[in-house]
């Protein structure tokens, strides 16, 4: 892997994680933007699936440490999502905006589904509402922000071609 690509991926990851802890508390609202999910997804597509799983695990365990219960829930969810994202992104294509939006949307939604189902922190009557209403809304908002970030930081992200297929 090109060291420049590694540096770019690390820089993007750090910036998005910092945004998660600095910008997100400022925004408020019922549908938050998940910058950490964006960081994991954008980093995952630039590394091998195994490394993506490690990134997801570490990010998730960090988030779990902020919760009072359920240590490992986010870790497992991010591990699966990051590995899947890296594997799928490598299979299909490069930086198409529409597909990137769909990719982020599905990644964030998948993370919420895994997290909600594993943690059990949502009341039974609210699970469907959470998974079919609030989670898609949050995923859509995260996807929009992801596309905007991709447009603004295209030179930093670099351009991947569809010919970079690994499998």
């Amino acid at each position, binding site marked *: 892997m090109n060291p420049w690509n590694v540096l770019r991926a690390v820089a993007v990851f750090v910036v998005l*994680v*910092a945004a998660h*802890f*600095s*910008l*997100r*508390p*400022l925004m*408020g609202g019922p549908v938050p933007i998940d910058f950490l999910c964006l960081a994991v997804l954008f980093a995952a597509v630039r590394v*091998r*699936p*195994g*490394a993506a*799983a*490690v990134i*997801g*695990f570490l990010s*998730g*365990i*960090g988030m*779990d*440490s*902020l*919760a009072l*219960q*359920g*240590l*490992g*829930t986010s*870790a*497992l969810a991010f*591990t*699966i999502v990051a*590995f899947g994202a890296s594997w799928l992104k490598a299979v299909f294509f490069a930086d198409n905006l529409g597909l990137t939006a769909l990719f982020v949307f599905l990644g964030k939604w998948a993370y919420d589904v895994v997290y909600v189902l*594993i943690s059990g922190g949502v009341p039974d009557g609210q699970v469907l509402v959470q998974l079919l209403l609030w989670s898609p809304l949050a995923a859509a908002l995260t996807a929009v922000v992801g596309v905007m970030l991709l447009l603004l930081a295209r030179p930093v992200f670099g351009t991947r071609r569809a010919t970079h297929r690994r499998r």
Partner: protein
Amino acid sequence: MSSRNARGNSSRLDTGLLLACCILSVIALLLPDRLGEPIATTIRRTVLAPLLTVQGQSQTVRAAITARDDDLVLRGAAAAQAATAPALAAENESLRRLLGLAGRLRDGFVVAEAFHPAGLTDDFTITIGAGSAVGVNAFTPVVTADGLVGMVESSDPARSVAITWAHPDFGVSAMSADESAFGIVKPHLVSGPERYLLELRGVPFRASLDSGTLIVSSGLGATYPRGISIGTVISEIPTTERWARTYLLKPSVLPSTLSAVVLLLPSRVAGGVSQVWTDVASADSAARAIVAASDSAAKLAALAELAARRAALLAASDSARADSMLAPLGPAPTVRPPSISPSISPPISPPISPPIRPPPDTMPPRTVPPGGVE
């Protein structure tokens, strides 16, 4: 071949890392709290510490923004309340005074809410939330604690429409509170702000009224009982009439500020309301007379005038009782002794003065067409 082996090794490594991460996650999930909490605490205090500091500062900023928004909302609410506070205070004061009036009247009245204007182009009528179902009929006097508002012109079972003193058809027989002058009060039909003043017409030329003199209803005509405050004298209006004076009055009641009114039922009209408004009026009149009589000569003249007025009113009262034509008009004017009892009593020789006869009402009672002059 070696490339295929390398790909296979990488794939196995990826799979191995995935399984390792998943297994660690599951182990973390299955850990009891007493074991998981130290791990979480360690992560929070080391890796996440700078990020949590940033998060805390962001939350502080967010709280400040929210607090400022709340502060602005509170300021807006306080400003809105401050804007309505004087109106509420005025309404409370009006209602308190109305309660006092109700206590003095005791019975024979109805308290009702006043709505205005009745029409978009009519500033001189009000709608009252009481009607014939509670005994309110045409010609029922409408008053407040400050004085006379007008009279009911038409009534439905639940609502009534009343004309105020500013209506062109309004009229009431009036007198000064000390009963020294009688006349007819009509609206001041001019253009401009003075349209909302009153005129006291037909005052005998010899009866001069000072500025500030209280004018009350005289009770002649049976629509309005005697003693309801109407207004105070502002000044005399020059007219072409040589035998009578006309005075400009400041009304006691401003109809535009009305929220509740009292309607005097026929039983209260027949019983009279002399003691309700005129107690204060008498005191005011006495005070003005005392002040005016600060020098001895003026005092002597005032006392002489009082004695003459008393004699004249006694004569008028006797005349009214004797006149059978005046019987349907209701009770004759009550003659009260002057409220001034001089501490120095010089011998008074009352000047010869013709009795002052109050001008009769221009309309017989209960036969006035709607909006007619009393």
